[in-house]
């Protein structure tokens, strides 16, 4: 008897713990509870996040976009999210759950959800799926992404002017084109103002692990790098630079507060315009399969909060380049573009199209080492 009671108690404790950690958090909207049935059911929109909304970076930026869309559409939509969804079979389960719970528009916010989403999309024909940073689409699934490399390029301009050792550092996450592009753009931006610049790269093979990110940043600084950028999701790299008296950037969100002395600028992603567009189309019924790749022009990418230690002329250079990119006058991927193996990838004045950009898996000249998994 006693044992049965104990195990029951233990069981309930484990269950309680799982409830606290494992479940998605739905934000109830007070408007939905108002007296009198609403004329139309609100559109249910769900988001699957790879990290915690409190990461201060990638997932935080998505969640800010979600909140802004909610503000825009009020009680015409009802949003929910599940955070910390691993890029594994779990993702499929979570996304399928979202579909069965009556969500009609589902956003998956990391590359690794592409295959799971595709699978669920074939089962739920009346649900619309949106996948971030991927390239596969279906009848009811489309892809969206941002041109984060535009931000990396402008950050590179500032870095190229601010470095004293002519060595930049990059804390990279997972070797996919998105990340390799940003390493290259950062280097190209720096070389556009300082041809002597080289970039060292350390891969941590994770999107989010502040400890590892910080250790990687330490290794880069010990190796002579003095201006760091990262493609990981936390603010640890910036803080490590602050601690060691070097310079760094914020990524995805404004990170000034984490290291005011080290913070040169933040290359941010603003997902709100896209989420407003996508949800608006779903409400109006004009949603169709397409691929959206938004950059500075659409207000999805920006470089903000340029620090006071950046001289006025450098600040001006960055602002001018931003304006050029916004007006469509400048393409980061303009030849001559040479790989770090010495081979010319783009001839003089040739411009890389989106297909080229999507497949970048090589380092440009000036980046040290080799892209992992690229034999």
């Amino acid at each position, binding site marked *: 008897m006693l044992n049965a009671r104990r195990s029951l108690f233990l069981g309930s404790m484990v269950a309680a713990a799982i409830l606290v950690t494992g479940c998605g958090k739905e934000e109830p909207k007070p408007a939905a509870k108002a007296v009198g049935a609403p004329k139309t059911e609100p559109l249910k929109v769900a988001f699957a996040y790879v990290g915690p909304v409190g990461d201060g970076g990638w997932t935080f930026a998505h969640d800010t976009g979600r909140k802004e869309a909610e503000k825009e559409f009020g009680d015409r939509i009802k949003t929910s999210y599940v955070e910390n969804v691993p890029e594994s079979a779990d993702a499929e389960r979570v996304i399928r759950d979202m579909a069965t719970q009556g969500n009609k528009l589902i956003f998956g916010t990391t590359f690794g959800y592409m295959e799971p989403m595709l699978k669920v999309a074939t089962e739920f024909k009346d649900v619309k799926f949106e996948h971030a940073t991927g390239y596969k689409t279906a009848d009811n699934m489309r892809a969206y992404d941002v041109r984060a490399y535009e931000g990396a390029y402008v950050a590179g301009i500032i870095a190229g002017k601010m470095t004293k050792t002519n060595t930049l550092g990059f804390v990279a996450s997972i070797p996919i084109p998105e990340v390799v592009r940003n390493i290259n753009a950062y280097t190209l931006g720096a070389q556009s103002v300082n041809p002597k610049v080289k970039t060292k790269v*350390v891969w941590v093979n994770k999107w989010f692990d502040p400890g590892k990110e910080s250790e990687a940043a330490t290794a880069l600084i010990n190796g002579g790098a003095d201006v760091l950028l990262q493609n990981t999701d*936390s603010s640890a790299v910036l803080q490590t630079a602050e601690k060691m008296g070097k310079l760094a950037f914020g990524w995805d969100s404004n990170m000034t507060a984490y290291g005011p002395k080290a913070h040169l600028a933040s290359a941010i992603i603003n997902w709100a315009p896209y989420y407003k567009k996508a949800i608006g189309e779903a409400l109006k019924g004009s949603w169709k399969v397409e691929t959206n790749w938004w950059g500075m022009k659409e207000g999805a990418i920006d470089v903000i909060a340029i620090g006071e230690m950046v001289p006025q002329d450098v600040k001006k250079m960055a602002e001018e380049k931003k304006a050029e990119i916004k007006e469509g006058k400048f393409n980061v991927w303009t030849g001559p573009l040479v790989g770090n193996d010495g081979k010319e990838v783009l001839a003089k004045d040739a411009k890389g199209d989106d297909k080229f950009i999507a497949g970048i898996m090589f380092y440009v000249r000036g980046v040290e080492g080799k892209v992992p998994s690229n034999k």
Partner: protein
Amino acid sequence: MEQLAPLIAATLSAGTPLLLAGIGLVVNERSGVVNLGAEGMMLIAAVAGFAVGFATGSPAAGLIAGAVAGMLFSLIFSALAIGLVTNQYATGLALTLFGAGLSAFAGLSYVGKSVPFKTTFEIPLLADIPFFGAAFFKLHPMVYFALLLTAVVAWMLARTRLGLVIRAVGESPESAHAIGYSVRAIRVGAVAFGGACCGLAGVYLSLIYTPLWVEGMVAGRGWIALALTTFATWRPWRVALGAYLFGSVTMIQFALQAEGIEIASQLLSMMPYIATIVVLALISRNPAFIRLNMPASLGKPFHP
């Protein structure tokens, strides 16, 4: 060579949270109790310490608050596993899951905040010695504290009456009970010490190592510390060795990458774990050896 000194310094910093938690867990396990809640206690302490450090602006207050939070959280484990004699492994796992959720919930308002502490230190005069200064004498005081704690615990376990009693309780609780020691009180005390040390490790991460709070920031270090106790065959100085070995392998793989040495980074990421498996395989080649060191009643419940 000039790369070596900062590499040593980074290794010592990276090994410190593992050492702090590992030492606590050694005392914990020497008393015969396995607490798999290490990760949960570290997370709770990380957020509690961060909150106090943020509110008071004092790193010392934050560190103490973290240790106290870890200790208090371990009392939940003691109440269940020692008081009600629930299964230690399941209770510890529940504590980790609970700690992960509770810390995320409690820390919501601290996300994105930073604490304005000085996190760089150096020992006057010694820090100016070429090479050794940069390698050993420019570290945070907690790094030295962890070593001091190791020395104290090693001495306590081997040379004092208290250590003898803790070990007796872990080897044969029935005998200790028969000669009049309160097995449960001693075990609660050992678990509380383990909780306080895990707490210090957690708050070291959130206030000193990467001074920020984000959900899940302990990132598996509690589990590594648990593995370290077995790795070290429950000997304090071997825990220190293991903790720094782990720290060094992590740092070396990043340093190699920063040097542009072309080894697949995925392969390098596995190195710490391969190192653990190799050492475990080596020490357990002789089964008598591991049994000789392992507390005989480890993980077994005691009914008074």
